[in-house]
């Protein structure tokens, strides 16, 4: 039985991270940018789990636990900020949120 190597897992997580980063650069909607950030976090957790499994430790899995917790807290605070921003400016498009530029 051929198991996929660590290389393929790391490449997959790199591709996933790149797609998330592309989304952050290309999209203008703050919520979609946030979703792409979550994709990047998911890619990082995938790499951590693969490394820890192929190196006979499980410390990486524990770190993934912490990453999941921090991501949940981050999403809650970020979405609250987005809702507050929408109340204030009636938009969530990032190129219209430029009050610090002026």
């Amino acid at each position, binding site marked *: 039985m051929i198991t996929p190597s660590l290389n393929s897992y790391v490449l997959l997580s790199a591709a996933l991270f790149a797609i998330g980063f592309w989304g952050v650069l290309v999209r203008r909607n703050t919520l*979609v940018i946030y979703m792409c950030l979550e994709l990047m976090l998911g890619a990082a957790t995938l790499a951590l*789990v693969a490394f820890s499994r192929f190196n006979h430790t499980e410390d990486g899995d524990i770190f*993934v636990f912490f990453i999941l917790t921090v991501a949940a807290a981050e999403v809650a605070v970020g979405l609250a900020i987005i809702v507050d921003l929408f109340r204030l400016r009636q938009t969530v498009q990032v190129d219209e949120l430029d009050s610090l530029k002026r």
Partner: protein
Amino acid sequence: MESIAFDLLSAFTLLCALGVVLSKNAVNGAMCMLLCLAGIAGLFVELHAYLLAFVLILVYGGAVVMLFLFIVMLLDMQGGQRWRFRRAQVVGALISAALLICGLDLLAMRGRLPSAAPVDHGVGSSLSFYSYQLFTTYMLPTQVIGFLLLIAMLGVIVLSRRHRPSPES
């Protein structure tokens, strides 16, 4: 057998990730993200991290994506357009993307990460392992994470307390 499952799951995950980036509608994007997270959970299962797959579905699929959908519904937003880039920016981006792909391809061809053959743990043993580690070796990070969650909760309550009048009007 496992390799076929890996190929299918990785293709599915990457396609759904592309769906998040490319979908015009934010609701479709959130649904694609849910499927993408399911794919990542499947990869976790293949890496024998069963508990993490379960937690990922529970926390991300159950809480985070639902929160996203809730906010999309609340703000009643359309997907929004892309940036309109200048030609020089597009050319530069294409060149740097090609360089990055070349580098990654070289790494994939030449590079060999040193890795031992994976070992199998039972399902139940990993659960007791996690709990043992969380309450012995990683006691301090667990406490800090608890405080972080408390602070995040307080921050969200403060942020969404009342409707302030806009300072610009």
